[in-house]
Structure formats: structure tokens, C-alpha cells
């Protein structure tokens, strides 16, 4: 793949045909004519489907059961290949030799009624099995009405069949059914039903009324299987197999590199999952055959245009308009965007899209809350362009060349070709357009890869994420490096992540958003390695960057504030958090988080009036996330307990339970923090507080949480300077009001034993009253006592 593009004369038709002649073993149009071994070798994606189809055929031929399968997929999606493989495999099964007779009907046979179907089956059987089926079917039936003749011929076939069964292979079943008409279909179905001697493997380009309408005779008759288009990986697999078949070791190797994978991604955007496209272009993917590649695309576009025109003609005007606007767009569109583009009311767009999706014209994908719609057969874009361009190079093909070959390769080739006698003018024109072309395909492929990366990250498939990030490095180096760095960080390899992220940060032309994201990510890597200084330095760069987006600045300030908080530099922490709250246009969610953090700092320094103000502000913010708001609601009582009355404090806890979001992790708060605040109050008020707290947590079925809090609060008892009488009061109040609640049984035992330990200064009580697993939890909470011991 490193040699320059060869100069050659450009004769489109001849080039492609030549290639087809040169390598007759792989055919894009008639896979049924290929050598079965080649067919097997280049088969991809549908192995399960093939095994199933073969199994069905075998069962149908060997038992009284008969399967009828209909495979649906657009033109060029590999239907004939699949059917040919089924044919190859059942023919190779010696068990079926005397049980099965195959009638493979011609793809373009015209049916005008049941008579044509009967004759076609008779002729095919006579051709394939002359000893059994060679017979003059026509003479005997001459003079009869067509349907009577058909019944006579079918009767003759069944008579000659003996105890065997027929495997009927019908391509383009939709056309055949249309030809049969209502009466023909009913008679054919009745024949299949009554005789039970025929199994069917059929194909069609789309779902059609004669099998999908409730009124149709064949409604519900077939097992309908919609063939999935090739995914990018399948396409790569197919191209690799074809390259191997053609002895192109360098292409095989190239397709495995991230660069190769990325280029297939870009091709996938152009071709969708169309098998035929990949088979055709696989011939021309080396640089030596740039002219062949161009010719191949043009030929393909020409070939397919009538098919797509027919597809568009069969749509209602609104549907056709929607399809055209999707074709004109660079990527997927939302309903709203389509409505704006076409001036069709949104509601209608939505309804028409539903139908278009059902008919296989468009596909949809959900990203976040929005559904995005795109062409199910992207090649339609190419074909519509053929009509518009009137002989000019096709922009989409030029855009593809721009992706498939690097700019320097194209420039070099252009220089070599220009002025050469016999230079291919068409090819030169394409190269020129390619060099001027907008990098649209690269961008779209990049976006698609980025969304795929996101999906992998969200579902924690980090190996896949890293692989796609490698490809992305080729399409969009800053974004690719960032994604790769983020993946390394996710899997805990902070050092490698830092290398990638530093590379992004040092790239001169990287967009500021990417750089800022890389800095924020690198800061978290440093944090993971305990390198606080570097961490803070990265946040600071983002904060000071002139052109960094406000959202990033707010995030950096918030993160730096929290980091300062963690290292107990409360002054700086507070300054950053205040800055977030005061930052104009900063996202409300960051402001809310900053306020919560401020509240915690104020609480730590005993500034309870401010704590109440901070948390109350968050609770009032409509934009605060449910988690942040719930956190504030449950933190507020911690601040009210030291400064407000019992009833106000308890009301504040009740409000938290009422207004908080039970789906969030923050719901229920941290009862140990609440208890620590109760311990700060004069001890005479403890029994009343404890009684009320138990009652609130019982009301909201959160006693298990309170129990954990009670256990954790042992540390505060151990730490604090409480008299024996105070410790006894705390313990006896809990035992008195809590003992009737099953959920508190173990925490109460633990508290009892811990208080005895604190009072006696040794852990004997733990051994006496607590089982091993509880002892293990309590011992670390009694650091002071046990240290003294």
C-alpha cells in the first residue's frame, strides 16, 4: 500500500469488466455462478442463519414437516449468496440424495398465473433430473383453461415425485406472487397445503402485500427473516476474505491496521451494509487501481440508479420528500430537523418516518432522548447525485477518495499524471475534486466512531472502546488520542492515559474543547497517582485559558475547589467554590454541586448559619439534579440540629424524606453525621432526639440506615470527651426506644458493647457480647480506647 498510484489510461467499462474477467471467481452480481468453495470462503456474517436454513431444508426433505422461509433484504445485500450456500450444502448431503428434488426458479421468470409457475417448476425439474421429470407437460394440457392446465401439470409432477419432496428456491418472490395474482396465490397455497410435498426458500427485496396483508392468501405462511446489513466489522471481514482470495496479502494486512479499519468505516458510510458494493470495490482498493475504483463507483451508481428511482417512485410525495432530504443531509437527522428542512408538519414527518422505517427506507437510532433517522441504504445518496451532477465527478466518491488516500498521495499522483500522455482525464478530475472536497466523510465517520466509542464506554466494553479510539486517531487525531487516553484512564492505566492526553494537549491544532477535556482528564489521572500539584496545575490551565468554554472552566474550578478541600486548604477551596457559584452562565448543576461542597466546608468549620443558607439555596434551584438536591435535603438537618429546635430539626428530616428522590443514592443521607450533630447538643436533650429520630426513620422504613449510622457514630463516642453518665444516657436512650425495632437489634448490641469497652478501657465486652463479624466492624471504630489499652 505504499507504492504510488500507477498511471493508467481510463476506460471505465473496460476496466471493471477487465477486472471481472481477470478474476472470474468472485462475482458481485451472480454469486450463484461462483465456485461453491469460493462462496464458502468469502461468506460472512450469516453463519447461524445459514445453519438454520440448511437444518430446515433437511427436516423438510427427510420428514413430513415442511418449512417455508422468506429472506428479505435490499438489492445487493447477499440474498443470492445465502440461497446458493443453502443449495450447496443440501446438495452435498448424501442423506438427501434420494429424498430431495430441487427446483431453483429463474430470478427473472415472468409469471402471469399459476400455469407459469407450474411450467417453470416442471421445466427446472426436467432439466435437473431428466430421468424422472423429462416429459411433455404442455401437450397434455393444451386446450385447457390456464388454471386447469396448471393443476394438471402439478398433478403430473407430484405423480413423478414419488415419495420424495421438492425444495423450491424462488428469488424475487414478490414479483412471482404479483404474477400469480389473487386466484393463483390461493390455488398455489391450497396445493402446498393439501399436498405437503414442497418446502420453500424464497427471497425478496422488501416486504410485500401478498405476504404481509391480512387479506392475502400467503399471510403468515412464511417464516420471514429480515437480513441485517453488514456491520463495519462484517464489511471488513468480507473485504479481508476477498483480498485473501485475490492473493492481496498487503491489503489483508492493511485492513487489520487502525488506518485500514477507519477507511472501511468511511466506506461503510457510503455503502451501508451492501455486500455487492464491497465485493465490487474490493477489487480496486489498492492504490494501483485508483482509476478502477472510480470507474467501479460510477458503474455501481449507474447500475443502481433505476432501482433507487423505482424505490422513490413508489413513495407518496411527502415520503419521497423526506427521503430526498435525508439523502441530501450529511448524516442522521431528527424529526424536527427534517420537518424544518421539508416544511412538512412534524406530526406528519413522524408518521411517515414510521412507515418508511417499516418499509426499509430509513433506519433510526436513539442518541440520548432524541431519535436520529438516516438512510437504510446509503447508496441511494450516490444514485441521486448521479442525476444531479450531469457528468461532473460525483462529490461523494471524491469525498471517499479523500478518505481512502491521503492528501499527499493524491497530490503526488496528480503531479505524476498531469501532462502525461494518455493520462486519464476523468481520474484527474476526480483527484482535483477530491483535493478540494470538504472533509465531510472524514467528519461523519469520525462522529459515528465517536458515538460508537461512547456506547462502548457506557457499557464498559473497554477493549472495543480502545479499538475504535485507535481508528479515530486516523480520522481525527486529537479526538482519537483523547478517546484513547480516556479509555486508558477508565481501565486504571493512568500513566499511559497521561501520555495520550499530553499528546493531545501538545497538539498545535487541537480544538480548545478537546484540549480542555484532555486537561481535565489528565488532572484526574494525576489525582489517581496522588500527584496533587500536577492535578491542580491542569485545572488551573483550563481556568486561565481565554477561550475555554464556560462549562469546562466551571468544571475545572469545581474540581480544583474539591481538591483543595480534600487537602484541607479550606480557604482556597472556598474561593474556587464561590467562584463557580458566581461564574456567569456556568451550568446550574455545577453551581449546585459547588454550593453543596460549600455547605460541607462550612459545616466542618462550624459555620452552621451559612450551611443552612448553602443547602437551602440548592433545594430552591430547579436546575439542580435530583441527586444533588436530595443530597442537600438530607444534609440540611445536620446543620439545623446544632442551632435549631428539636421540632424544626425533625421537620427538616421529614421534609428530606418527603421531597428527596428515593431513586438516588443520596436518599436517606448519612445518619451518622446527623447523630454526631445530636451529640453536640446538651446531653439532656438526647433522649427526646433519639426517640424522635427512631420514629422518623421508622415512618420512612429507613431504620436499617439509621442502624448503620448508629454503629458508625461509635467512633464519635470514642473520640469525644464524654462522661460515663453521658455515655450511659446515650446508650440507655437507644436501648429504650430502639429495642422494639428488629432492624436495630444488632446496632444496639454493638453500641452496648462499645460503650462498655469505652468505659472500661478494654475490649472484653466485645468478646462477651458480639459475634466475630460484628467485632470486626466495631474494633476500628474504637481506635482511642483500644490504643490506650
Amino acid at each position: 500500500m505504499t507504492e504510488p498510484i500507477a498511471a493508467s489510461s481510463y476506460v471505465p467499462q473496460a476496466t471493471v469488466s477487465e477486472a471481472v474477467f481477470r478474476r472470474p471467481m468472485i462475482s458481485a452480481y451472480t454469486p450463484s455462478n461462483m465456485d461453491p468453495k469460493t462462496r464458502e470462503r468469502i461468506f460472512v456474517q450469516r453463519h447461524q442463519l445459514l445453519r438454520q436454513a440448511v437444518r430446515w431444508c433437511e427436516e423438510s426433505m427427510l420428514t413430513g414437516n415442511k418449512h417455508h422461509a422468506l429472506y428479505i433484504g435490499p438489492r445487493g445485500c447477499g440474498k443470492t449468496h445465502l440461497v446458493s450456500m443453502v443449495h450447496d450444502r443440501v446438495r452435498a448431503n448424501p442423506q438427501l440424495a434420494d429424498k430431495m428434488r430441487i427446483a431453483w426458479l429463474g430470478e427473472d421468470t415472468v409469471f402471469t398465473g399459476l400455469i407459469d409457475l407450474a411450467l417453470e417448476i416442471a421445466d427446472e425439474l426436467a432439466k435437473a433430473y431428466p430421468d424422472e421429470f423429462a416429459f411433455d407437460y404442455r401437450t397434455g394440457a393444451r386446450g385447457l383453461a390456464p388454471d386447469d392446465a396448471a393443476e394438471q401439470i402439478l398433478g403430473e409432477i407430484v405423480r413423478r415425485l414419488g415419495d420424495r419432496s421438492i425444495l423450491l428456491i424462488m428469488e424475487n418472490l414478490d414479483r412471482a406472487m404479483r404474477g400469480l395474482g389473487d386466484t393463483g396465490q390461493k390455488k398455489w397455497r391450497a396445493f402446498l397445503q393439501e399436498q405437503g410435498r414442497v418446502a420453500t426458500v424464497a427471497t425478496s427485496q422488501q416486504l410485500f402485500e401478498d405476504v404481509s396483508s391480512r387479506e392475502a392468501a400467503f399471510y403468515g405462511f412464511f417464516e420471514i427473516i429480515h437480513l441485517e446489513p453488514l456491520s463495519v466489522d462484517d464489511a471488513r471481514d468480507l473485504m479481508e476474505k476477498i483480498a485473501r482470495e485475490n492473493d492481496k496479502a498487503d491489503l489483508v494486512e492493511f485492513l487489520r491496521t487502525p488506518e485500514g479499519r477507519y477507511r472501511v468505516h468511511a466506506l461503510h458510510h457510503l455503502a451501508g451494509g451492501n455486500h455487492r458494493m464491497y465485493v465490487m470495490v474490493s477489487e480496486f482498493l489498492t492504490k494501483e487501481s485508483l482509476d478502477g475504483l472510480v470507474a467501479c463507483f460510477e458503474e455501481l451508481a449507474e447500475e443502481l440508479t433505476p432501482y433507487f428511482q423505482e424505490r422513490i417512485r413508489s413513495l407518496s410525495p411527502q415520503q419521497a420528500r423526506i427521503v430526498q432530504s435525508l439523502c441530501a443531509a450529511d448524516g442522521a437527522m431528527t424529526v424536527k430537523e427534517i420537518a424544518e428542512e421539508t416544511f412538512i408538519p412534524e406530526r406528519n414527518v413522524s408518521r411517515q418516518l414510521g412507515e418508511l422505517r417499516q418499509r426499509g427506507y430509513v433506519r433510526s437510532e436513539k442518541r440520548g432522548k432524541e431519535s436520529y433517522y438516516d438512510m437504510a441504504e446509503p447508496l441511494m445518496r450516490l444514485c441521486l447525485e448521479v442525476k444531479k451532477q450531469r457528468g461532473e465527478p460525483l462529490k461523494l466518491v471524491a469525498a471517499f477518495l479523500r478518505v481512502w488516500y491521503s492528501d499527499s498521495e493524491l497530490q503526488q499522483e496528480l503531479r505524476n499524471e498531469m501532462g502525461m500522455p494518455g493520462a486519464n482525464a476523468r481520474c484527474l478530475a476526480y483527484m482535483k475534486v477530491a483535493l478540494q472536497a470538504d472533509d465531510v466523510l472524514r467528519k461523519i465517520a469520525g462522529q459515528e466512531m465517536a458515538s460508537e466509542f461512547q456506547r462502548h464506554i457506557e457499557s464498559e466494553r473497554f477493549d472495543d472502546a480502545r479499538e475504535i479510539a485507535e481508528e479515530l486517531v486516523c480520522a481525527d487525531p486529537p479526538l482519537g488520542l483523547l478517546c484513547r487516553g480516556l479509555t486508558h484512564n477508565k481501565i486504571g492505566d493512568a500513566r499511559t492515559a497521561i501520555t495520550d492526553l499530553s499528546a493531545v494537549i501538545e497538539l498545535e491544532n487541537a480544538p480548545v474543547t478537546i484540549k480542555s477535556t484532555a486537561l481535565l482528564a489528565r488532572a484526574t489521572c494525576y489525582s489517581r497517582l496522588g500527584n496533587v500539584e500536577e492535578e491542580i496545575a491542569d485545572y488551573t490551565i483550563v481556568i486561565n485559558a481565554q477561550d475555554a468554554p464556560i462549562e469546562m472552566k466551571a468544571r475545572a474550578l469545581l474540581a480544583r475547589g474539591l481538591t483543595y478541600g480534600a487537602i484541607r486548604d479550606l480557604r482556597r477551596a472556598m474561593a474556587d467554590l464561590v467562584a463557580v457559584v458566581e461564574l456567569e452562565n456556568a451550568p446550574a448543576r455545577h453551581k449546585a454541586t459547588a454550593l453543596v461542597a460549600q455547605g460541607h466546608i462550612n459545616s466542618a468549620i462550624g459555620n452552621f448559619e451559612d450551611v443552612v443558607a448553602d443547602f437551602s439555596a440548592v433545594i430552591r434551584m430547579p436546575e439542580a439534579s435530583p441527586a444533588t438536591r436530595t443530597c442537600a435535603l438530607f444534609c440540611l438537618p445536620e446543620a439545623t440540629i446544632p442551632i435549631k429546635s428539636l421540632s424544626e430539626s425533625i421537620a427538616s428530616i421529614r421534609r428530606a424524606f418527603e421531597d428527596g428522590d428515593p431513586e438516588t443514592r443520596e436518599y436517606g443521607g448519612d445518619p451518622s453525621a446527623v447523630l454526631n450533630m445530636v451529640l453536640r447538643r446538651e446531653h439532656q436533650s438526647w433522649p427526646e432526639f433519639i426517640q424522635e429520630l427512631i420514629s422518623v426513620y421508622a415512618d420512612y422504613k429507613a431504620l436499617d440506615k439509621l442502624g448503620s449510622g448508629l454503629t458508625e457514630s461509635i467512633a464519635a463516642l470514642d473520640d469525644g470527651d464524654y462522661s460515663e453518665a453521658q455515655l450511659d444516657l446515650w446508650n440507655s436512650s437507644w436501648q429504650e426506644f430502639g429495642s422494639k425495632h428488629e432492624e436495630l437489634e444488632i446496632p444496639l448490641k454493638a453500641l452496648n458493647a462499645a460503650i462498655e469497652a469505652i468505659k472500661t478501657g478494654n475490649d472484653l465486652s466485645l468478646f462477651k457480647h458480639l459475634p466475630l463479624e460484628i467485632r470486626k466492624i466495631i474494633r476500628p471504630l474504637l481506635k482511642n480506647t483500644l490504643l490506650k489499652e
Partner: protein
Amino acid sequence: MAKQVAPENVVGRDKLIGRIWKAIDQGSVVFTAERRIGKTTVLKKMQAESPPNKVVLYADLEKVDSPTRFVEVVLTDLKNYQSKKAAIGRWLGGLVESIGGTEIGGVIKIPPQQKKGWQSILEKILTDTCNHQTNQQIVFLWDEVPYMLQKIDALEEKSGSTDNSSLAILDSLRAMRNENDNLRMIFTGSVGLHHVLRDLRGQDYASQPTNDMEKVEIGPLALEDAATLARNLLGQEAVTCDSQEPVIAKIVELTDAVPFYIHRVVTRMTLLESTVTPKDVEVLVQRQLVDDSDPWEMEHFRERLKIYYRHNLPDADGNSIPAASLAGVLLDFLALAPSPRSIDQCYADLRSKVRIDNRDDVVQLLKSLAQDHYLVRDEKGRYRFRFPLVQRWWRTAQGLEGTKK
């Protein structure tokens, strides 16, 4: 369909068929069943494994579009039977000859000049057959009868004919059943016969051409039979399960033990890359129910309301409301109801949405919905969805998920 199952491979219908033979001993039968239940499979099995005292003739009448064609089908079936069992007699040849009939490719054709006399030919064939075969019952298994009747009627209407041959066929058949002790018929079809009869009869036709026939409902498989079917299919399709029995139980539960859905689920499972778990079955069934291409053709349950509930009912102000809309509202309520609902509850539900004050209309509507297998009544006379699978689909398709009742 998708797979025609050979009679010997049909799972779990022996008891039902035994019951049907008992009913046949007494008289003729109309099968009622929801689509996909496997009526045709049962008919084919009955034909293949018929008791010695019965001559069983199966015909799919979907192809029949005229009364003459129907008579030809009957004649051809008798002739095919005759070629297998000579006992039915030489008389048939004579009969065909007497009407000037010819045999073309195994099919007997009635000459055009005799077409007007189809009714007498039909009656003669049936009477003669019964008379020649007195020691055996002659049982005709006729599939897709309502389709045939609709088709004949539609063609006559198109040609301006007022013959009303569909009803004439039914009347002739009924007369023949009355006159011949050993003649039996089984009518079946995927369109409800009661709807077709209502349309054929119009307002002023009093005859009840099938009320001498016993209605036999073909329901889903018994749970253990459904499990056996699922187990067999998993084996045939070489599906590997994490643990097979829980997967089977889940398949049976989610398909309501209907063979068609069991086949479809297992077929799709073959395409899963990994070993199958009960969760996969759940995901798969849910996907089939919400799939845009409607692979289980459930939309039919909504669509056919528009076709068969075309009549209007008056509301409290005398305005007309399409019966299909009222039926839809009733189904919406029942789809969300956690337990079966009484007629009064259904009436109250409907009144909360529509100004309707004729309770009898609602009773009739519920009855029709039950006849059409949407609903079923429990022992207390309360209604619920007949199939939880359909209920589940209805909830999703009508966007009722998350709706509070």
C-alpha cells in the same frame, strides 16, 4: 404456518382430537379458534389418523370462488378417495358421466351447461355417497369456509347477481346433514363465521344455517404439551441453553402455550450467538412485540376491529359512535385491569370515557369480543383478555404503559 408440521409430528392434540371424534359421532362441528392456534394442523392430523368407521376428506376451500367450483372440489375429493379405496364405489364414475363431467389433471370439471344446477348436483353427490357408504360416516373437513363464502358473495355482488349462493351452499349443506345420518362436516377458518353470516344474512334472513353444528373451541396446548413441544424444538434447532427447563418454562409462559409463537421464539433463539437464558426469552418476546415490522402480525388484533365492528351504536345524545371505537376503549381498560372485570365494571369504565347509556349494547359488544377470542369470561362471568400475550401487546401498541387506570 412457516412450517407445515406432518401429522405424526404434531404435539399435544390427541386428547382434543379424541373429543372432536366424540362430538362428530353426535353431529357436525364448527371449529372456533383464535388465529395461530393451529386449526389446520389439527384438521390434517384428523385426516391422517382417522378411525376406521370414518371416511375423512380434507379440502382447503380458500381457492374456491363459485358454487360450481365448490361442487367440483367435493367431487374431486371423493374421486381421489375412491382411487385409494375402491369401496366407495363405481357409482361415482357413473355420476360424473351423468352430469357430463370431465376429469382434467385429476380435477373433475362440471360442464358450463350444468353450472346452474350445482345445487342439485351437490345434493345428489352427497346423498349418493352416504347411501353407498352406509356402514361408515362420511366426514368432510373444510378449511377456510368463511373465506370461500365471502369470496363467492363478493364476486356475485360485483357481477350484479342476486343468487346469494353462499347462503344457498350453507342451506343445502344443512339440508343434507338433516337428511343423511352418516354425513358429517367440520367447518373452520381464520375469519369468524359469525361475522360472515351476519354480513351475508343482512336484516331479513331468518335462517340459522349452522345452528345444528356443535361449536368446539381449539385452545392453546396444555402446559405440559407446550413444554414438550418447546423441548423438541430446542433439540431440533440445536439451541444451547444455560439450563433448559427454566428456558422452556419461560417460553411456555410468554407464548401462552400457542404452538405458533413457540415455533417463532425457538426459531429466533437459534440465531442468538450465546447460550440462551430465560432473560433472553423475555427480551426476544418483547422485541417481537415492539418490532416495527410486526413479525408476529399482532397488528391484526387492532385492524380487524375496524373490519368486523363496522356498525355504529348510539350514544346518550343519539349520536352514532363506531362500535370499533367502543370495543377499543373496552380493551384499553381491560388491558390495564389487574383482575377480571364484571359487565357492570366494564359498563362503568366505558361510561367514564363515552356518553353511552345503553347497557345492552355493551353486553353485546363484550360478547362479540369474547366470540372473537379477544376476551374470555371467568367462572363469575367477569371478562379478561383471553391471551396475556395479546394483552401485553395491546398495552404496548396502544401506548398504555405507564398509564394509571
